[in-house]
């Protein structure tokens, strides 16, 4: 992981080589260990040290971007030449007022934990060995992944903006398997001590053995559903891609378009991008150097707007929201810290209030491209799908397919828990989703996983 002085030296050389009207550069270095296990056996164990530099230049109002993983002067000069060449052949950015210049102070956030940064593969292996032994006693086998990482993020631009932060991240996922049933548990945090793999093993085991031997089937139809945070995280990641990004808003495919200020969801729904919450996965700035702040996309059911990088904010005559996570990204702003507000219920209360419904641990392979204007999505359930009858969990259900408009569903949320959980995402190390467990009326289940014949 690069220190602040090492990062600034590389960025300074990149900005000097840029030779452009304006330029900015981002340098990210990662030191991560990930241990993957299956059949209660550690089968893939990896350690990675890597770094990447992205340089963006503005020439005559046009933008060009190039990146490299080598930082010698010759390679940086070649990268700068590629970026200038790209800018030369690009059109001027519409209504662009220039790169960020304001030097605003950053929120003070604790993003780094030394114990997490120094966690070794051997420490994880010892934890896993204990979990595997407990699993054998409980008659379950475990699969999953256990990661710890430390990262340096630095960004600078030709207006003298200079940002640097170190962050740590720990993430574990555990699936327990027994007699054809499975259960799932996951945690992520800036501090590894908040990710207790043994507790996750117990939680996954409880899910795998809950109502074991009591199997029922349901014909497709609309059912009240209790969705746990990992299930919500997957659909909200898709909502980000198809509705919240600057690009989805600008090209008209987002359901936010023409709806800003309108009540589109229930009054109990607030979805924001918030990297400043110390209980989430905090981070102080985006890669354009803007200070992170809380940005509501939907507030008490009312549409507030998309997340935007600087270029697309100017283009749309809106305010940038500090959501540029790649310089020159085609998303033009992406919500990497999806914060779904909770309420005052407990999961047990949500279950107890359900006459006939389905409790879902997580989803599998969601796709949100069916009809973006209504956020029509499809996916299946996995690793713990349960039937609720008269307020009690009475049976395990097979994995089910669902096809549901999220715009419709956000208007049918009947209850939210106070407790919220962080869920990591596979596509970035900065953030993820923090969400409560929710109860939604009339979720459309359209099929089921059928055993082969």
């Amino acid at each position, binding site marked *: 992981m690069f220190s602040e002085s090492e990062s600034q030296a590389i960025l300074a050389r990149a900005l000097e080589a840029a030779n452009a009207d304006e330029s900015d550069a981002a340098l990210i270095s990662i030191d991560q260990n990930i241990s993957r296990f299956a059949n209660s056996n550690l*089968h893939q164990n990896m350690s990675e040290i890597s770094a990447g530099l992205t340089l963006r230049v503005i020439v005559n109002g046009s933008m060009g971007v190039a990146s490299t993983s080598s930082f010698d002067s010759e390679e940086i000069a070649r990268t700068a030449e590629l970026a200038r060449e790209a800018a030369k052949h690009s059109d001027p950015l519409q209504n662009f007022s220039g790169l960020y210049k304001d030097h605003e102070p950053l929120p003070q956030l604790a993003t780094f934990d030394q114990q997490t940064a120094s966690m070794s593969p051997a420490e*994880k292996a010892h934890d896993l060995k204990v979990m595997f032994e407990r699993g054998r006693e409980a008659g379950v086998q475990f699969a999953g992944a256990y990661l710890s990482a430390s990262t340096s993020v630095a960004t600078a631009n030709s207006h003298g903006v200079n940002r640097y932060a170190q962050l740590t991240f720990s993430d574990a996922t555990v699936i327990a398997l027994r007699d054809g049933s499975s259960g799932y548990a996951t945690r992520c945090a800036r501090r590894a001590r908040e990710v207790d793999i043994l507790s996750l093993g117990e939680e996954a085991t409880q899910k795998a053995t809950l109502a074991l031997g009591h199997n029922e089937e349901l014909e497709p139809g609309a059912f009240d559903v209790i969705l746990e945070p990992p299930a919500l995280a997957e659909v909200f990641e898709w909502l980000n891609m198809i509705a919240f990004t600057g690009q989805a808003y600008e090209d008209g495919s987002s359901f936010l378009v023409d709806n800003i200020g309108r009540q589109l969801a229930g009054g109990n729904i607030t979805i924001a991008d918030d990297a400043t919450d110390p209980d989430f996965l905090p981070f102080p700035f985006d890669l354009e150097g803007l200070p992170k702040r809380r940005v509501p996309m939907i507030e008490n059911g009312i549409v507030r707007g998309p997340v935007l990088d600087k270029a697309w904010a100017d283009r749309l005559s809106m305010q940038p929201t500090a959501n540029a996570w790649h310089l020159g990204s085609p998303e033009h702003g992406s919500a990497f810290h999806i914060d779904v507000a909770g309420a005052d219920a407990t999961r047990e209360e949500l279950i107890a209030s359900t006459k006939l419904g389905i409790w879902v641990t997580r989803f599998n392979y969601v796709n949100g491209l069916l009809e973006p204007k209504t956020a029509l999505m499809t996916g299946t359930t996995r690793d713990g799908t349960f039937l609720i009858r008269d307020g009690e969990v009475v049976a395990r259900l097979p994995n089910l397919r669902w096809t549901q408009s999220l715009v419709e569903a956000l208007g049918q949320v009947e209850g939210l828990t106070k407790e919220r959980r962080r869920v990591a995402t596979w596509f970035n190390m900065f953030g993820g989703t923090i969400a409560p467990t929710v109860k939604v009326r009339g979720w459309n289940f359209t099929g089921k996983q059928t055993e082969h014949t």
Partner: protein
Amino acid sequence: MKPTRAQFEHALKSLRNPALRYADIRWTATHQQHVRVRNGEVDALTSTVDRAIGVRVLVGNGWGFAATSHVSEEAIQQTAQRALEVAAASHIASSGSVVLSDIEPHVATWASAFEIDPWSIALEKKIEHLLAATEPMRGDRRVHQVSGDLSCYRQEKVFASTVGSYIEQTTTEMGGGIEAAALEGGEFQRRTYPNPFGGDYQAAGWEFIERLDLPKKAPLIRDEAIALLSAPKAPAGRFDLIVGSSQLALQVHESCGHPTELDRAMGLEISLAGGSFMQPEMLGHFRYGSELVDIVADATIPGSIGSFAYDDDGVPAQRFHLIDKGMFVDYLTGRDTAPAIGRKSNGTVRAESAARIPIIRMTNINLEPGTTPLEEMIADTKHGIYVETNKSWSIDDLRLNFQFGCEVAYEIENGKLGRLLRNPVYTGITPEFWRSCDAVGDRASWQIWGLPNCGKGDPLQTMRVAHGAPAARFRNVEMA
């Protein structure tokens, strides 16, 4: 930048551990360039170069892998030592025994063929080509956005192992496509050519882009995007379904390619991507599809992005059946998984780059052409639906229950293509679907499609794979 053979061999020799059973070192340099135009202007123009070194060791029964983007002799040595440390940690929580299938040492150099180097074409020409291809789609108020993409990819790779192999491979690829998005009222429709998500990809040069003839296809794409706005919704119910080549390629990918990955079947990928309904005890006697269904894995097809000369275990590229006349006969395997089913590796282990651990990946997984011309298939269908070009995809964790949405559909009545239909969605259970196949298109409708974005592994690896498929007909399929 590229380490010498002596440096590779020195690093392998530096791995001093009496329990070391195997080690390999890979170096990759991955060059990518992407040009995108949108609504008559350049929207994105990016270049990336990533270099990495990866060292994999097997010590006793513990695997260790370490990687770095710092490519220097000192970094290689440090990375090799880190791999040993990681392997030692694996020992703590590893209970199984690792058996590797036999392999011969290979010393070879290979490069995919191209006529015109993608990097020899000036950026200006690439932009002009895309602007010319997208301009015919503009002008109608309902066409809100037109775009075009060109992607150039080259990966240089060196592999050296303690078996004695030293293999250098270079793959050069080009991809491209166009898209029209139409918007009116609350309706939003996209139409793409030749495929969505950046188009089609081949291991080829600029000549591939010229063959696509994007400008010629543009008016048709525009017209269909507009027509979709007012087209009737594809009906729900059960229909005889003819699936066009590019959509069937993705069907093969999701419902045959992934479930025949042996690591998935063994539960090794269960935490992220899931498992497989196709279990080893089913090999040789499970009817996956009708007798018309032959699916092969073939990493030797020239010009396809799923081809190579050696996989990242150093095993030569191969062609073999996964599904033979409808029967499940083989898996995609690697050296450390094939022995579990009593076989030798069939050479399908690859990594995105040297920064990632090699895992089983699809190569070119192809539904072999049949004998029925597409026109005859349509003429022989009394009441059905024809679907083409993928729009959405979803399948469960065992690869049984799938649902696909397509960009377009046409109704078929009394053997003739009828009205255009919007938002078609079909769903089914994998073996039931493939067993219902009663016509497979001939060579004329067969085409190989490059998919550069197959995700698997943790950390996620994006792999370049391909699928050949003709059109084919499936009876009594559920449309949602």
